[in-house]
């Protein structure tokens, strides 16, 4: 049998891109799909994916579970399990297009669900924690079933193939969102499978990542103590859980979370003039030392209402940001940004460890 990730280690190269409308204006996925074309050579056809925010306004109070199943029987079994925990508001196949470039697709399904209130009360869990635990349980224990997206009013679309083909496969031009992220993958020694493509998500948090985390195992062991099971052994998965832990569990701000995972060097902290800033960075590095992510990365972190782009502190991967009107563009290469908007202004290159945070204007999503 072909080995899946987790049985084989995969270092990866990659391409990332993102676009967001600060006004919360929704637009189709065609633009982000096209952005991946000039970066074609950064991927090798073993993974492509997208995250889209604001695409399910008609079901915005439901968690949208996007799932892969290896066969019909697995789906039927999983539905029995889901029905014990959720009211399933809608269940449908995710529409796809048959194209020669994409083959061996699993069953791709989506459920719009609401957790049973009685169950939440009985388990004394808040809704998000309940959903997160259910997702972890399915991914760790249910063979052949994989939840790859579980947020409200958002969804990810991913698979094995070049990203520009994956976008066509999932008919992204038919969706309309205010924020999109994209990833093209270059795993170098793995068969690659659909669940291993980026983005990696939990609830509405999604990560696309270009790089290779050398601290993966240290990070994984730490985060495991708080109930996060890394089931894929791809480094990116752990970033998603770290962000969930820092933001949802510990209540840090995005800026603080960025200072934890891409902490400045001690010498840089020492040289800071601002005493408050110095103490804060010292505190964050000391308390969350096991969550420092070392090795090269550039990531885009998506969430309901915004995006954050971040490079590792040594900036071992490239990242470019640009703006035009209400939109902000982020990509591994300027060419990708120019493909989305030829007339992009204020092109700049964020420093290593300097988060670029874009939030929607209040109340527009």
């Amino acid at each position: 049998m072909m080995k899946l990730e987790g049985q084989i280690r995969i270092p990866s190269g990659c391409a990332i891109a993102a676009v967001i409308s600060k006004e919360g204006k929704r637009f189709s996925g065609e633009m982000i799909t096209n952005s991946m074309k000039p970066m074609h050579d950064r991927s090798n056809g073993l993974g492509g994916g997208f995250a889209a925010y604001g695409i399910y306004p008609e079901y915005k109070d439901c968690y949208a579970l996007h799932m892969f199943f290896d066969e019909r029987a697995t789906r039927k079994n999983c539905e029995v399990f889901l029905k014990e925990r959720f009211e399933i508001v809608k269940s449908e196949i995710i529409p796809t297009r048959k194209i020669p470039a994409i083959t061996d697709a699993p069953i791709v399904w989506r459920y719009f669900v609401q957790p049973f209130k009685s169950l939440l009360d009985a388990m004394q869990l808040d809704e998000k924690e309940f959903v997160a635990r259910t997702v972890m349980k399915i991914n760790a224990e249910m063979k052949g079933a994989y939840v790859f997206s579980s947020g409200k009013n958002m969804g990810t679309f991913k698979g094995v193939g070049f990203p520009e083909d994956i976008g066509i496969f999932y008919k992204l031009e038919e969706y309309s969102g205010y924020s999109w992220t994209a990833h093209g993958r270059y795993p170098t020694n793995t068969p690659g499978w659909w669940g291993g493509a980026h983005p990696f998500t939990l609830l509405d948090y999604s990560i696309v990542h270009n790089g290779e985390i050398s601290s993966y195992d240290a990070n994984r062991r730490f985060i495991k103590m708080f109930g996060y099971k890394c089931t894929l052994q791809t480094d990116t998965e752990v970033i998603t859980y770290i962000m969930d832990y820092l933001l949802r569990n510990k209540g840090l701000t995005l800026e603080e979370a960025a200072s934890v995972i891409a902490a400045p060097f001690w010498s840089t902290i020492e040289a800071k003039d601002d005493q408050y800033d110095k103490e804060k960075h010292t505190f964050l590095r000391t308390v969350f030392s096991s969550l420092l992510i070392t090795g090269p990365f550039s990531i885009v972190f998506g969430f309901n209402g915004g995006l954050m782009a971040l490079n590792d502190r040594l900036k071992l991967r490239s990242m470019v940001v640009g703006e035009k009107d209400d939109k902000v563009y982020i990509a591994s290469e300027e060419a990708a940004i120019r493909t989305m908007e030829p007339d992009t202004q204020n092109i700049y290159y964020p420093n290593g460890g300097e988060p670029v945070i874009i939030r929607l204007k209040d109340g527009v999503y």
Partner: protein
Amino acid sequence: MNKNFTSIAACDLDYQTLNEYLRQTTAPCHITDCCGQRYIASGFGAKQIIIDGVPGNALGAYLNGASITVNANAQDAVGDTMNDGEIIIHGNVGDAAGYAMRGGRIYVKGNAGYRAGIHMKAYENKFPVMIIGGTAGSFLGEYQAGGVIIVLGLNSDKQDKIVGFFPCTGMHGGKMFLRSSCDKVQFPSQVSTRKATAEDLAELAEHLTRYCELFDYELNEILNAEFTVVTPNSNNPYKQMYVAN
């Protein structure tokens, strides 16, 4: 557009096809609608190329005498391992510009990203020069072994910080001119810094003449400022790490 130039619309071409077109003619070429094609003019000898739009990574890698002008920003690894020739960028460059170059010149009007001039070296009669008009990111001249890197900080509002963190890390050859007092810059212990002398300025003027011509600057205005010169303390700082034989 100059009619002596062969015009190539790059919009739908992949990098291999684009480079094929460039090789098919000895005439100078003008590439339009460039968008991310990598390795343009890699290894090219004498030839003139003008590019409109953004060229992809490794522009002019292993360049061997050609002249490339880009009327926009360029991406990462411009002039990677170049041997001879000239690359002129009217915008910014991404990370690792002039990576391991050992000859030729790179002139950037705007800013450079991280690791500009990493592992730049000189070899026999080869002597690379890179001039950055704006500011440079962190790790400027990392492991620099030869040649000259000049950062001018023109149009920068932070005159005391025209380079990022950790410049000259592992530098063991060559020279750097920074148009700033560099009061707020931390240099590693294996390099020395000093104010430019009259002799230094004469050398600088030689390198800057072509730059000023290209980007329409007044040489004397640029020279009329404090320059910091950075050189390694020793030619062989890592001597103790190797067996003497």
